[in-house]
């Protein structure tokens, strides 16, 4: 068999839940952002979840359990995919307002991973603004990712340095990834082995 010229990364999992104290009826948008050498081969690059409400059973967590499933093909680990999340919910007037932005890299190591992402929102530039505005924020994109038609509101990726923007954390989102890779090791990239599979074998 000829040596592979690309490696594959399959990610499945779900956006499990979020903790946003003081907010309710939130929904979550996700999209993947990746480098120039990456191409998604299957699955959804971006999506938008249902609106979830708090319940009396779990008064702190908002559970989405929204599945993600995507496969990438790449020639270069540079630009490893990141998942970008933005959570929205209605404000006092019923407008959809962003409640948090966050991003995390898809884990390198095959196996099941759970990531808790701290979600931030930009601060108003001044007190007055804080009072008057209804906190409409939208972010411009910096990494080239996703076509505009499919992402009506552009996602956030964090540029290398942002000295100009002040943000505040407003909650957490827990995401679960099941990562599989193919040919990564063959191509000389050693990401180690996850504990998951081995543990399972032993049991």
């Amino acid at each position: 068999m000829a040596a592979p010229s690309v490696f594959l990364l399959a990610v499945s999992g779900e956006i499990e839940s979020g903790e946003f104290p003081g907010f309710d009826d939130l929904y979550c948008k996700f999209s993947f952002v990746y480098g120039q050498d990456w191409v998604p081969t299957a699955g959804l690059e971006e999506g938008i979840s249902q609106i979830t409400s708090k319940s009396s059973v779990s008064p702190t967590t908002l559970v989405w359990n929204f599945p993600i499933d995507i496969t990438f093909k790449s020639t270069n680990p540079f630009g490893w995919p990141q998942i970008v999340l933005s959570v929205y919910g209605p404000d006092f007037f019923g407008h959809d307002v962003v409640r948090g932005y966050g991003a995390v890299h898809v884990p390198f190591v095959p196996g099941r991973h759970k990531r808790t992402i701290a979600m931030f929102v930009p601060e108003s530039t001044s007190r007055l603004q804080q009072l008057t505005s209804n906190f409409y924020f939208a972010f411009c994109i910096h990494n080239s990712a996703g076509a505009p038609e499919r992402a009506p509101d552009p996602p956030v990726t964090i540029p290398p340095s942002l000295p100009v923007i002040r943000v505040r954390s407003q909650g957490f989102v827990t995401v679960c990834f099941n990562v599989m890779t193919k040919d990564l090791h063959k191509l000389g990239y050693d990401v180690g082995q996850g504990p998951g599979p081995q543990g399972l074998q032993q049991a």
Partner: protein
Amino acid sequence: MSAARRSDASEAVRELPPVPSTSRTSFAELSVRQRMREKLKAARTKAEITLSQEDPSPQPRRLKGIRERKPGVRLDKTSDNDKFREMPEGESHLPSKVKFRDSVKKLKQKSTFQNDFPSEEEAYNFFTFNFDAVPEKMKAGARKKNGLNEEEGVEEECVETHEDEQEEDEMDDDVHLVKDDDLFIGQTDEDLLVVKPVDCENYTEQLKREKEFLFIPSMLAVPASEKMPRNMQPRYLEDEGLYTGERPVVSQSNQNILENRILRQDQGKEWFGDDGKILALPNPVKQSSTRPPIFSLEEGIAPEFETVYRKAIKMTSTNPYFVGPGDFQGLFQLDIDICGLIFTHHPCFSREHVLAAKLAQLYDQYLARRQKNLTKLLTDKLHALRSAVQYSIEGSGDGVPVAQQSIPEYKMEIRQTRRLRDAEQEKDRTLLKTIIKVWKQIKSLRDFQKFTNTPMKLYLRKEEVDQKSDEKVYEAEIQAEIKELLEECMEEYEKKMEEYKTELHHWKSWKKTQKSKKKKKKDTRVDEESADHDFGEERIKPIPPRMANSLEIEQQVREKADNCRRKPGEPILVPELTLSGSITPTEQCPRAEVLRREDVKKRSAFIKVLFNSKEVSRTVTRPISSDFRVHFGQIFNLQIINWPESLKLQIYETTGMSSTTLLAEVFLPVPETAVLTGTAALEEIEFSSDQRVMLDHEGVGSGVSFSFEADGSNKMTFMTSGKVSSSVSWAVGEKGIPLIPPVSQQNTGIPSALKNIDAIASIGTSGLTDMKKLAKWAAEAKLDPNDPNNAALMQLIMISTSGEAHVPDFFRLEQLQQEFNFVSDEEFNRSKRFRLLRLRNEEVAEFRNYKQVPLHEREISEKIFQDYEKRVQERDVIDSKNYLDAHRAVVASYLQKVRESVINRFLTAKHHFILSDLVNEEEIPGLGILGLGLFKLAEPKRPLRPRRKERKKVTAQNLSDGDIKLLVNIIRAYDIPVRKQVMSKLQQPSKSSRSFNEMFAASPSAQSPPNSPDWAFNQVLVRPFVEVSFQRTVCRTTTAEGPSPCWNEELELPFRAPNGDYSTQSLQSVKDEVFINVFDEVLHDAVEDDRERGSGIHTRIERHWLGCVKIPFTTIYFQARIDGTFKINIPPVLLGYSKEKNVGMERGYDSVRNLSEGSYITLFITIEPQLIPGESVREKFDTQEDEKLLQAAEKYEAECTSKFPSRQCLTTVIDLDGKTVFITRYIKPLNPPQELLDAVPDRSQTAAQFLYLLAGDEEEHAVLLCNYFLGMGKKAWLIIGNAIPEGPTAYVLTLEQSQYVIWNPSTGCFYGQYDTFCPLQNVYCLISCDNIWFNMQEYDSPGRIYFDISKPKHWKPFFSRSLPFPGLHSIQPEELTYEHSDKAAALELQSRIEKILKDKIMEWRPTRPTRWNRYCTSTLRNFLPLLEQNQGRDIEDDHQAELQKQLGDYRVSGFPIHMPYSEVRPLIEAVHSTGVHTIDVSNVEFALAVYIHAYPQNVLSIWIYVASLVRNR
């Protein structure tokens, strides 16, 4: 259930080898586990103690149940089950206290791992478990069974609780339950609590009580005697030369307290050393770690996770004396005032200057001497001494012994003083003499050379003296001196006599011995011969001293007085030097002198200030004045960090424009700390240079000998020399604190002691790297070599002086880089893949958007780099192939470079973000908006009312091919040229029945079938359709009819960005244009035979190009949409078509159209999706403009834009060098070239640059045109406005016969103010050479505004009464010189272009042969110059006739295209867009002619005539 599972899991782990590396247990967890285990142990022992009496019950009651639930449990499980079984027993007996305590403990444990709460059952079991005090048998039995003891079981269980992360959720539930249980237990035990009030104590009482047992040691110093053993004196080891080391600093009061406290103790004195101080180590910091080594208590740790203790490696500090940031105490500042420079000799000195300098020097000396007045001082002293002697001699009778004794001393002093006075007097006199002599020399020189170079004048003021008294004083002085000398001589004589006597005595005795020796010699002659030699020298017999002669002495004295003293009665001469003389004006001087003066004028000097041999500043270059003085008057504030080692001034002289020579270096002393700015006096420091200068004019040169004498004798040589007057002082800070380094402050108090110890202070930081200096310092500072603190330094010095150590002469910034390199540099450079990745990262244009860089080297082809390499190589090689003209090629490559640099600026700007780039925040609503909002709320709801939805804007970065479409809406056209009706006179001579005239050949149109030939006359005049071509994609509309067709069709064209790069800056640089061509569709009857006419229709469709509109893509991109009516660019000659004919068919709009000629088309163009045009680069450019002006400009712009935000206000522009320039500087009357005066000058950067570059956009054109108009004496302004299709642009406004005319500078078209089809849509501001006016009127379309700029209500001027025009000079050149064009080159270019175009046409017709009709081509070529002459007007008919005559057999369709020339590519595009080549009649022939008319300065106007010919059969 969960318990069972947990135990199951525990088994699994028990079976596993203890390899936590594979488990998810982290280090943190390990320690937590350990802690927990300890707590458990403690709990268990406690339980054992309390329950030791309890009777354990062996019955396993619950075992069964558990087993039932979990049948798969193994045998070893039983040990656990044993515990369970025992628990219920214990529970009933346990005192509630214990339970409570345990539960609390358990809770604590819980809080340490919140994630891993034990299950309900487990918790229950745990608390109720009877930790029995070992029923030994049981335990042993259990061990036998399992090989595992009970403790381990418990341990394991607890450990396992966190192994199982999967069961978190269940755990959560358990926790709640456990908590609840515990709480209930706690609440029931109320009897444990006793409520008591809080004790309160009186403060004084408390103090009293405290006094009983508290001791407060005194802060007073303890006398030394108390600290020492009795009868002992303190002894100071340091004084005895032993090294004691430095004690840590402890405040005196603390020391006293400690001493007092120690002395209270028994044997307190043991704590004191010999010197009466508390024993202390020099350095309290211990060298080795006292922390005990950590031994791993857990055997189960995998070897790879075991912590290995490595001793911290001490960094051998390479640079121990680096000034740390902590030492930094702010900046220190030296103020260096460089006042000026005076040359005492300079190569350009004329002889007179030399003398004048000498005179000035002498005069200075004289002044200095006079100020000191030593002669007077010494004379007075002499008098005082004499009177003192006199007095003491007189008073000697009183027998004062002291006075007697001091007489000889006085006398001695008198002699001394007199000698000094004499010397001084002599000096004074010679000085005066030389001054006079030099002055005389100057005078004679001036007489000789007949001009004066220096303003020096010497006056000698005579001070008359009283002859008699003067004589008396003189005589008395002489007498006194004679007397003293006599006395002196007498003394001398006596002394000598004495000497003589003793010597004589000696001599006599010697003589005697000599004689006796001689006798002896005779005996021992041989032996003593050598010794005899010693004595052999003859001793001279002493001569008796001579008595001094009083007469002789008198003569001596008088002679001397004559020499050095003013003669009695002679007036005192006081020289006065003034600069009041006049210098002969240059015109009256001889040539050599004129040359000298000119040379001086060319020279200038400046001074560099070097601090620690580094240049820190320099003065301005000032010309050397004619009196060889240079005034700088500059003060330099040097903020320094390093200790100043040297301060040096370098004096440079520049001659003319070229050479700069170092004249001399002057060292300035580093000022004392007391010298502060304000108090420092200017000092003059002399310098001289050894440079040798020979000059060919009157200047005497330096280092060259010259002479004042005519015969050349008495040669003199001077070196360039002079004085720098300057002062150096320490600056005084804001609060009056002198900015002096502290070291120096201490330095003054304790001279050099501290400085020696601080190496940096003494040798400077730079000295630290110099080993020799360091060693020298160490030797000088007398470092204690035994002091361990100095060990490292001593070693370093030892090594360095012995020369063994190698001190690297470089400094590595990233010393770890090597370790992080995953591949060697060579491999990195060799690898194609890495190269590709690197180039992409550097955002090189070709690779910026390269996707999916292949993973293997072999998959990358070499070809990828070829283009790039070629481009890099050819960057500087000018390729004339594409440009045909070397000059234009140079320009093109220059423009390419400018473009590249602009793109690079954009790329860097792209990485800088401002807040608005990242966060879209709503504007703070103003009152107006709020009001509107409220108003809107009150509005009735109209759900059916259509509303325009804003299109979503898309940033251009995340797009790919096919995402962007160009939408072109062709709406209608006016005044399309129509086919010529009848060409009767041409028809007859034509041989063929069917002339080329299309109406015969015209075939059926949709409306009326062409049954009768008569119909032809009624046939539609024209059947136009529009074809849009963009990026070689072509779309066309349907065919409409008539000269004013209406299409109303939308065409969609895809857009592809270059290199697939959709970033803003790449879209901005798209050069493609949208061609909108209007064609006439002509149907020809293709039927060869009339007989077939009945049975079938055979027509051939031909299309005739009528005209086109070109719109650059970038315009569409920036404008977002283009909506308007455009003039169709129709060639001056359209064969077979005419315009006038259809004027008859008025439709009412003609009245509006009165001024305009030509055809128009209404278009709407936009891009889907809408792209956000890139923002301008936020960069400040440097400028040479006045800061105030720029501020005023900014203010003006802000005011304007606040009133009319949509109107652009332009005050400053950026020139080619990237500098901000005020716009009015561009406007200035310029002479148009003669050839263009009659024609419309349609060709502006400054005009000179533009003409050089031959490339510019509308603004440049407009500026040049405006300047030409001004040059022709017209009133002209530059209009900044908005036009279609250019967008924001510049037009020109002129006032002609009280009518305003608007000029389009790029086409040369002009429009009246009220012209409907004027492309200029909005007028924002007007610019003239001295002002800017901003449009303040309500409307801004040219037809609706007043152009009268004198009304400030309508036009807001920039320069007004409050800010008058400062007279900014123009940056345009005075006059443009026009180079005459090279006619030959134009001819050559003409033939080359013709060839290229012909080749292209053949290329575009790959399937058919392309035949060229030479005859026609030459005919056409003859027409073209005619067209240029007439500017394409009014020749159509003649032209047509001519052509017909000559080419009667052919049906010709063609037209001339007129274009300005810059490159070949647009020409090709233009020809292609006309579609001449698309004709596919088999026997078609082509004709193509090119004519270039060269205007001055290489401006070329190009005419291309293309035609297709079809032979009529």
